[in-house]
């Protein structure tokens, strides 16, 4: 087994030509694989195929020659066995449903989307299983700023699947001397970490703009991580996953980087800008905005204490001012740091 799997010249399909999808397509093509990059937008297809660039997705990147953009889903999925889905979470189901008409049981499908479906709080692999017949699935996540990877800077990512062949095929397509591809098997953990870290990133953006200092940023990151792990564990994740690349790794990069979209949303909020304006200016999806609503509802439903994510929710959806939220947090946060009682700080304070 294994040895016979997929010759190295078998094409790979990437659904979604946003900045991450385009970057992944470029990586696989740089490894010598033909790549079919699916986009809805005919102009984007023309730009990619004729100018070898995607100015909206990854400005400045010269795409490897193996990338061919298509707008026909059937064409994208006709030959590849490995399919990578990089579609924003709120459009994910629609694309999967359409792809479900074309995907077959032998397909290996990995998604690279960090968010939850807003109306159902479903994880993306759950949506995939509902909308297609595919079983051999996985998720790609980690501290991966697309522009850095596209520029060839070193990075690590993690492919998580219960199917060893999915991990093998992904490694084969994506790993290079510049990109280490780690393996994992806690799908729920990786997906939940990826969704919740974007909420914490909005808080980090707010803190950065308010110039609260490095101590406060570290406080926020650490407590944010604890909340992610607590809520994630209540939803079926393994706690250790949050100490990995898809957890603390991704959180660290998103909180530190001024390029992160969610971070940028936080900064703009702290400047007093209105959410609709911020999102319009951004021109791309900030997953943390929807994820904050999901996290809020899930925490309520599972009785999990998430004061930081709650405050982000209030700033986003209830018009609370960031500084009032910060004051509120400082008042609430005084339980145990780590250990058995760490998750029950509020309960113990209220007796």
């Amino acid at each position: 087994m294994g040895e016979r799997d997929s010759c190295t010249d078998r094409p790979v399909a990437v659904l979604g030509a946003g900045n991450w999808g385009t970057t992944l397509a470029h990586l696989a093509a740089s490894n010598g694989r033909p790549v079919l990059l699916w986009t809805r937008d005919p102009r984007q297809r023309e730009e990619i195929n004729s100018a070898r660039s995607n100015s909206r997705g990854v400005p400045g990147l010269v795409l490897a020659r193996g990338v061919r953009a298509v707008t026909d889903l059937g064409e994208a999925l006709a030959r590849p066995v490995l399919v990578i889905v990089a579609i924003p979470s709120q459009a994910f189901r629609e694309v999967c449903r359409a792809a479900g008409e074309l995907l077959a049981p032998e397909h290996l499908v990995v998604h690279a989307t960090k968010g939850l479906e807003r109306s159902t709080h479903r994880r993306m692999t759950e949506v995939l299983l509902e909308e297609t017949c595919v079983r051999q699935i996985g998720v790609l996540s980690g501290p991966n700023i697309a522009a850095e990877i596209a520029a060839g800077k070193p990075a690590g990512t993690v492919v998580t699947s219960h199917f060893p062949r999915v991990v093998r095929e992904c490694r084969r397509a994506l790993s290079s001397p510049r990109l280490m591809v780690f393996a994992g098997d806690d799908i729920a953990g990786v997906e939940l970490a990826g969704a919740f870290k974007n909420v914490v990133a909005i808080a980090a953006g707010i803190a950065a703009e308010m110039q609260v200092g490095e101590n406060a940023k570290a406080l926020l990151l650490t407590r944010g991580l604890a909340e992610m792990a607590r809520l994630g564990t209540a939803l079926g994740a393994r706690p250790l996953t949050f100490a990995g690349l898809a957890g603390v790794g991704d959180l660290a990069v998103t909180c530190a980087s001024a390029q992160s979209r969610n971070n940028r949303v936080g900064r703009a909020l702290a400047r007093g800008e209105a959410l609709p304006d911020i999102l319009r200016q951004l021109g791309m999806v900030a997953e943390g905005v929807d994820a904050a609503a999901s996290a809020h509802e899930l925490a309520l439903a599972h009785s999990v204490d998430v004061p930081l994510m709650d405050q982000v929710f209030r700033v986003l959806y209830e018009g609370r001012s960031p500084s009032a939220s910060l004051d509120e947090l400082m008042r609430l946060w005084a339980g145990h740091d780590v250990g058995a009682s760490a998750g029950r700080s509020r309960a113990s304070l209220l007796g």
Partner: protein
Amino acid sequence: MRCRWAGAQADDAEVARAVVDRIVAHVLAGNPRDAAPAVHEVLGEALFHERSRLEHASGQRADADREFWAGVARALRHAGAERSAKLLREVVARYAGEIRGHFDARVYAVATRALPVSLSALLNGLSPAHLVAHAGDLPNLEENVVLEGEIDTLRALARVGTIILAPTHSSNLDSLLLGFAIYRMGLPPFSYGAGLNLFTNPMTSFFMHHLGAYTVDRSKTDPLYRATLKEFATVLLEHGRHNLFFPGGTRSRSGEVETHLKKGLLGTGVVAFKNNLRAGAERPRVFVVPATATYPLVLEARSLVADFLEKTGRGLYLPAVDEFNLLHRWIDFLRGLLRLRLRIRLVIGKPLDPFGNDVDAEGVSRDGRGRPVDPARYLLVDGAIGDDPERDAEYTCGLVPAVLRAYRADTVALPTAILAFAVFERLRRSAPRLDLYRLLRSPSDELTLPVAEVASDVERLLGDLRALARDGRIRVSDEAADAATVVRRGLETFGTYHPVPVIERSADNLRVGDANLVFFYRNRLEGYGLDGSRPALPPDHSAHRV
């Protein structure tokens, strides 16, 4: 292609031989992934497990086993490659022989064709006349068993492929119930992996020996034994023999419907399907059909719940003698069924393929959106059927939640469970500071509730249950028309079989006679998100582990 039933006699020895050949070949080839574990290691491990088991075993069978393994140990010490391979074959052949047991295809074919319709006739057939004289009237299964669900689909699929019937397990009576149901549905007999205790119990050994049963000895922990057992079931499936096994592995101790399944035997479906495809079999398909049994009363409820409380309560409770082995308990039970016209409900669930897809009556697998799926393609690697045990095991993990969800949806809320749930939850609310064990040990004058209050709880519960039933997440008995009927019917039933009435009425109060049993019967409604119980899985939650 051999004729499936006429050839059964000849098949039988062939099945055992094929099992031994495959296991031996597998061990000798080693696992291509790891360094090949030497035959010595495999046998050493077998010795270790069997010796540990035999430390606590007694009886003729154990003595014979001890002698056999002493011989293996002696021979192994000086064995070269050839001799140890021969030893391996002897060990596997011994295991296969035990599993095959008294499985005799000729008797199997005749006995199942002549399967008696009524349980009293069955008892007549197996026991001395005096037994039946004491028993008096015994129920007719036709009247006391309600068969419902996807019966026609099951019949149709049994003709186009091979069935794995996967029932819930709440009582040893399940074996008889299913034997009857298979006969009643007009299906050919099923092979059945039955626990050793069913062969030693006088009330059931007859059936076990005559219903195509093979032996599963759960006390054997040797991986080689487990592998032999799995291979046995796989080869039977490949020979077109429908199989029945309880994926829960053992009777539910708490009374709750299964929350976990063993993947070993369930996983034989995908392997047999794959082997069939490779061999170019005429009917390669394997279908997994969940079946859910609900009893108004459970024969061995007291023993089961005592065992449950002992395990989780760390020795606070002592296990009782298993009522399953007591003949007079059987007779009491059957009489109770008859007198009250109680009905056991058996619901055949929606058939699934080994990958967790629904299967329609034509045998076509359908994905979550109802689109047809070719299941053979799940096994393709570069256009050919590929071996990948990890992948296949993972497919089985994906099948498990679909089976568990069928169990929940096809459970019937009967008056006994509804009444017990209402009573137990009210007691628990009235004493929030008591843990389960203290609550169950409260003196009975503290376990008394006004009947009007319980009736109003039952009313609310019925509303919740009907809402769940509308979503297809449970079935509600037609006996549960209203709260008054549930209370009356529940009390009537609880007063009939158990040594003390589980719950009884005195004036305007209900008094709990056996708190453990209230807990046991209440647990059938656990996990539906009813007030006081664990939340339910969302109804359309993805079928698969992700």
